[in-house]
């Protein structure tokens, strides 16, 4: 790892970058240009972000707060919990002394904002013993925390293996390497049976005990209730955006997906996140009313990404889709399955309900939400079983009128690479031209963006989609 990376703690860099970006968002163009110059390391990607307007600026501010809280956690006597993106962070915010840090979000930021991407951190993990073939999405920031170039972690709480082994494995490695307590929520291979629900609920209670024991903080019912009520509003806003997404042309800009899920992974239940969703909805409504596509250009095709949608060190995937007039109809990362979602009819009996009547119902709610986080829901069982990967992909592709499906992921993902060829066969049988991207969504060294883009070009052209 380059020595200079250890000089500035990673989270401090994030905090500073986003603070400046927030300022820049509110500044005049001239001030903006000046400010951007002083943002360290950034490869010029903040500019296009800022160009997205209000929601993106709110998003940047939200991340500024998130990382600012993180770097001040220790001095405020708070404990830092390392967690994963497919874990709803609400529970941490319900404690008065816990601050979460989600590694995958950090990896996306590092790889998008920094010229050299997250390679140094990834390679550092390998150097201290973590296997190189593991998923890159954790390694991209985990390296910093392992190297001591980030805040000190107090404990690790994640979703457990069987959903994604390589993910849980990375976190358990980190916990062990740093000598910190570890808790994993475990998930059976099915979703709907009562016994499974019971399992979720009991396991979640054990998690809360773990957080109490190792955090020493207080779990605050009122706080939890207000967080859940805020989440309810957030779900409604999200649903409305998704409902509008069904229109042809789709009025939702593709990059919104990234902002929406990143927001949910980090700041679920926070008023700022609600504001961002409101601002998004406004833009989407305006687009919808005028019949404009969120692409900013006429829509020629609609693609559903049945796994991850970003590509390392640039927003290439989003950008490519927009430039080629293909609407992004969502990815597996942007589906959460509340009981009022527009796609609930397609997936009956599998959504969660927010119930704030009492402590128990609230904990059950959290457990149910967590059991439906991206991947946690979709890839826990056989891909062709009820409510699993194939059914979810088909129902979402259908409800959003997608014309083709694209897989993009990471070679670290045993779980999907073990059956993606099979699901592709089935999606094709159902009439969806399907393309597999062999790149790594977080590590640009696996396949260059140019190659990925060339293959995308070819796919859309040859399959007669464009």
């Amino acid at each position: 790892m380059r020595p200079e990376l250890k000089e500035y703690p990673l989270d401090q860099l994030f905090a500073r970058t986003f603070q400046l970006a927030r300022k820049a968002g509110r500044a005049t163009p001239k001030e903006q240009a000046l400010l951007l110059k002083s943002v360290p390391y950034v490869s010029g990607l903040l500019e296009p972000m800022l160009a997205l307007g209000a929601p993106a600026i709110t998003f940047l501010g939200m991340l500024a707060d998130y990382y600012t809280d993180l770097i001040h956690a220790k001095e405020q006597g708070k404990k830092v919990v390392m967690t994963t993106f497919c874990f709803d962070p609400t529970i941490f915010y319900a404690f008065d002394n816990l601050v979460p840090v989600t590694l995958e979000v950090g990896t996306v930021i590092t790889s998008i904002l920094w010229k050299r991407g997250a390679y140094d951190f990834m390679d550092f993990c390998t150097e201290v013993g973590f296997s190189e073939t593991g998923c890159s999405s954790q390694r991209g920031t985990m390296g910093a925390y392992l190297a001591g170039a980030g805040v000190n972690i107090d404990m690790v709480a994640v979703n457990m293996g069987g959903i994604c082994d390589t993910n849980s494995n990375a976190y358990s490695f980190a916990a062990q390497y740093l000598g910190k307590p570890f808790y994993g929520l475990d998930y059976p291979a099915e979703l709907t049976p009562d016994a499974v629900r019971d399992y979720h609920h009991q396991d979640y209670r054990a998690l809360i005990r773990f957080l109490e024991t190792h955090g020493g903080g207080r779990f605050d019912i009122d706080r939890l209730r207000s967080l859940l009520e805020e989440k309810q509003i957030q779900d409604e806003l999200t649903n409305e955006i998704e409902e509008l997404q069904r229109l042809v042309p789709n009025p939702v800009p593709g990059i919104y997906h990234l902002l929406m899920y990143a927001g949910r992974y980090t700041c679920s239940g926070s008023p700022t996140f609600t504001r961002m969703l409101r601002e998004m909805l406004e833009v989407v409504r305006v687009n919808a009313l005028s019949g404009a596509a969120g692409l900013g250009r006429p829509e020629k095709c609609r693609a559903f990404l049945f796994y991850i949608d970003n590509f390392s060190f640039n927003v290439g995937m989003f950008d490519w889709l927009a430039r080629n007039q293909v609407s992004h109809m969502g990815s597996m990362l942007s589906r959460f399955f509340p009981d009022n979602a527009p796609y609930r009819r397609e997936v009956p009996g599998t959504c969660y309900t927010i119930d704030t009547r009492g402590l128990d119902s609230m904990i059950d709610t959290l457990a149910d939400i967590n059991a439906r986080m991206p991947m946690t829901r979709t890839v826990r069982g056989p891909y062709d079983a009820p409510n699993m990967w194939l059914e979810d992909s088909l129902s979402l592709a259908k409800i959003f009128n997608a014309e083709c499906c694209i897989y993009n992921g990471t070679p670290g993902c045993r779980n999907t690479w073990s059956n993606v060829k099979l699901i592709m066969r089935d999606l094709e049988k159902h009439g969806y031209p399907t393309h597999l991207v062999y790149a790594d969504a977080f590590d640009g060294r696996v396949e260059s963006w140019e190659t990925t883009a060339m293959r995308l070009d070819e796919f859309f052209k040859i399959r007669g989609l464009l």
Partner: protein
Amino acid sequence: MSIVAGCDVGSLATKAVVMERRRVLAAVVVRSGPKPGASARDALDQALAQCGRSAGDVSYCVGTGYGREKIAFVNETLSEISCHAKGARFLVPSARSVIDIGGQDCKVIKLDANGGLVKFVTNDKCASGTGRFLEVMAKVMHLPVDRLGELSLQARDPVTLASMCTVWAQADIIKHINARRPAEEICAGINTAMANRVAMLANALRLENDICMTGGVAKNKGVVHALARILGQRIKEVKTLDPQLVGALGAALLAAEQAGKVNRKELPP
């Protein structure tokens, strides 16, 4: 006067060193042929001819390298790790770390203050940390492999190779060629990719100074410089002998030790 020999049958090159009293009498590198036994014979014969000795003069011979099992005339075989460590310490007595990059793998060796083997790692994951990687890339560039190093030193803006895989890196290179990037920048990209890969292995062992590089790839200045830069550590060059010969040298040194033991045993008290 009895002499000793070391013979290193590598995947790409076969090396022989003949020594007398810790002094190198002759050293030879030949391209490995399809029969390792014959390549070894050939290399040793050439070396003996060089110093005007005959096979009968060799009191002890140690074989190493991939083809070591096939060398008919050796008294003993030892792994390349031990031989490179031995040879490197002889040439650079302060060496605590040895990085040997040969044709089909790369080895990073850590030594204690007395030159004892503490730990080693080899790349078993991907071929992109090997000399073969460079050869394949050189071929794509229509260049001889020994030109990659000096050319790359002239580069101002090295290309980056996205893929670490030898096979897929070729596609990257062709892309850069098509984009008309100057050859030296592409070469620098190749050497840097190689160095990155090796650095990962080296960092895993937390190398101590002095670091010494051996094996054929040590002759590629581009890789050596890039590696030193990435590691942030100086690499001591082996100056008195072709670094590709260090394995064979180590074998010869070990042969001398063994010969000493044998002789002592045989001598009446």
